[in-house]
Structures are given as structure tokens and as C-alpha cells.
């Protein structure tokens, strides 16, 4: 990286966090809008063909159709989210199914230690199993009281709010339980394997 040349008057589109400052992880800034960032085209999955699967190191895989998934016990989640591109958005309101509820439908093999979330379009992200359970992750299909828009990951998106938002896979179609960690789309390209914003785990080696 070359020497920094400071531009007079440039602050980016950042806002003063004010009293919420203690909710902004280090190096992050507050936004009011909801930026759309994608690694590929937005898939248009026919809901009649949509399914959500839990597979891998489980005794029997579980699978739900869209209608079945909608009948699972759902909850409202209000969470702060942080993207590794340095924006943080407070109090995002989602509705969806806790990963705990989903995992109740399978019997985990004792060797399962990591989870790979996989999506339409081929995106993957990896998570340690302890980061997915105990109310820390959910599969959302509503945002702000409306069906989750395709550009934000609809019909359904994994949301893991305590980790950088690339872990919250858009267009998620399932979770695969594995024994040995497998770095996902960004984790295999220099991004941190864990991604805790409060520890600023942005890049591998952070």
C-alpha cells in the first residue's frame, strides 16, 4: 500500500454514531441504508422448487419445501449487522427460523464440528458449529415486515449477526455439517475464517 494522501473534506458517507457509538465495532461506520453487495447475479428460484436441506454428518438429512419451511416455528430477530466493507447497520428487523429449530430435526453425528452454508449460485461460507447454535444464527425470509427481497438474499438468507455479514449467506439452500473445516468463497481468498467484527477478524491472519 502506498502512502496515504488525505483528501480535504472527504469522510465517505459515514454518519456520526452519537449515543450508539458503543454498538459500532472497531473500524466500522454507521449506515442508514442497506447496501447491496453480491458476488454474482441474483438467482430467481421458483418457490415451488425451493428446498432447504440439512445434510452431511447427520444420521438422516432433513429437507423442507417452501411451504413446509413457512410452517416451522418462526421468531422475530432485531440485530445489528456489520459488513467487512466497513458499514454497520443497527436494529435490522428479521423474521425467520432459528438454526436451533432446524437442527432439532436431525441427529448430529458426534464428529460434526463445522457447518458450510451453501446457496443458489454456488456461494458457500463456513462456520464453526458453536457459532451457529444457541440462538446465534437463523434463516430469515422476512425483512422489516416484508418478504425478503431477492437483492438482499430472498427468498431466504442465513443471518449470523455476530459475525461479518459475508457469513450471512444470501439465497441459502442448506447447511452441511462437516468434521474438518472447509474455507468458503471469501474465506479461501484471504478473508478471515471466523470473522468476528468486535475482534476485527477481517483478513486471514488478523
Amino acid at each position, binding site marked *: 500500500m502506498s502512502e496515504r494522501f488525505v483528501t480535504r473534506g472527504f469522510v465517505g458517507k459515514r454518519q456520526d454514531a452519537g449515543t450508539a457509538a458503543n454498538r459500532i465495532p472497531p473500524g466500522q461506520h454507521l449506515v442508514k441504508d442497506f447496501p447491496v453487495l*453480491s458476488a*454474482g447475479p441474483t438467482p430467481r428460484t421458483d418457490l415451488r422448487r425451493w428446498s432447504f436441506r440439512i445434510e452431511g454428518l447427520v444420521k438422516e438429512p432433513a429437507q423442507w419445501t417452501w411451504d413446509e419451511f413457512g410452517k416451522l416455528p418462526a421468531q422475530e430477530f432485531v440485530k445489528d449487522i456489520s459488513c467487512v466493507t466497513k458499514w454497520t447497520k443497527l436494529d435490522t428487523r428479521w423474521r425467520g427460523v432459528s438454526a436451533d429449530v432446524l437442527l432439532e430435526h436431525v441427529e448430529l453425528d458426534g464428529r460434526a464440528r463445522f457447518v458450510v452454508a451453501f446457496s443458489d449460485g454456488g456461494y458457500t461460507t463456513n462456520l464453526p458449529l458453536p457459532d451457529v447454535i444457541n440462538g446465534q444464527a437463523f434463516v430469515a425470509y422476512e425483512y422489516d415486515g416484508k418478504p425478503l427481497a431477492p437483492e438482499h438474499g430472498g427468498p431466504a438468507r442465513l443471518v449470523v449477526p455476530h459475525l461479518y455479514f459475508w457469513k450471512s449467506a444470501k439465497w441459502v439452500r442448506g447447511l452441511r455439517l462437516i468434521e474438518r473445516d472447509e474455507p468458503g468463497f471469501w474465506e479461501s481468498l484471504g478473508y478471515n475464517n471466523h470473522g468476528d467484527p468486535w475482534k476485527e477478524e477481517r483478513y486471514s491472519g488478523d
Partner: protein
Amino acid sequence: MESERDLMLDGNAAAGVLQEIFGEEMTTALTTCDECATVSQMAMLRVFSGGPGLVLRCPACEAVMVRIAQTPRGTFVDVRGVRQMRLPLPSIR
């Protein structure tokens, strides 16, 4: 609000980063998609930027051809989706 199609740029938008990596003007280089064998100049690849890194996809089949992430520990480049690359002769710019 921007439509999702507006998120799609082309290889022209990645010209600076590509030149930084390869040391040459690369938008006229020919790339063969490993998935569908379509040959495209890099300028014609679909570019998705703004996320953690830069993703270049085949204009024909949308398979990922090149991924680039610039981090404080160096630039990561994954070209697994490119079967072959043909750079123009230096004399022809």
C-alpha cells in the same frame, strides 16, 4: 433504488486492478472459461464489485472465472475458472 442488473459491470471496471496485478493492460487479453469454453476478452467479463473482493464471471454461463481480494497481507488471485489466457503482444499494446 438500483436494480440488480445495475450491479453487473464489465471487465472495463476491473482494468486498473488487473493492470496492477499483471503489469499489463489486460482488458484485451483473451480468456477461455473453464466451465463452458467460451472465449472472451477480459473487458467482456461480468464484474461484481463492492463486496469483500472482485468477482469476474463468464458472460455466457456466469461461472466464476477470476476472484481477486486485496488485503493488507497481499492480493489474492484465484484464476481456477480460466482454462487459458492469451495476452496481446506487447508491441500491439
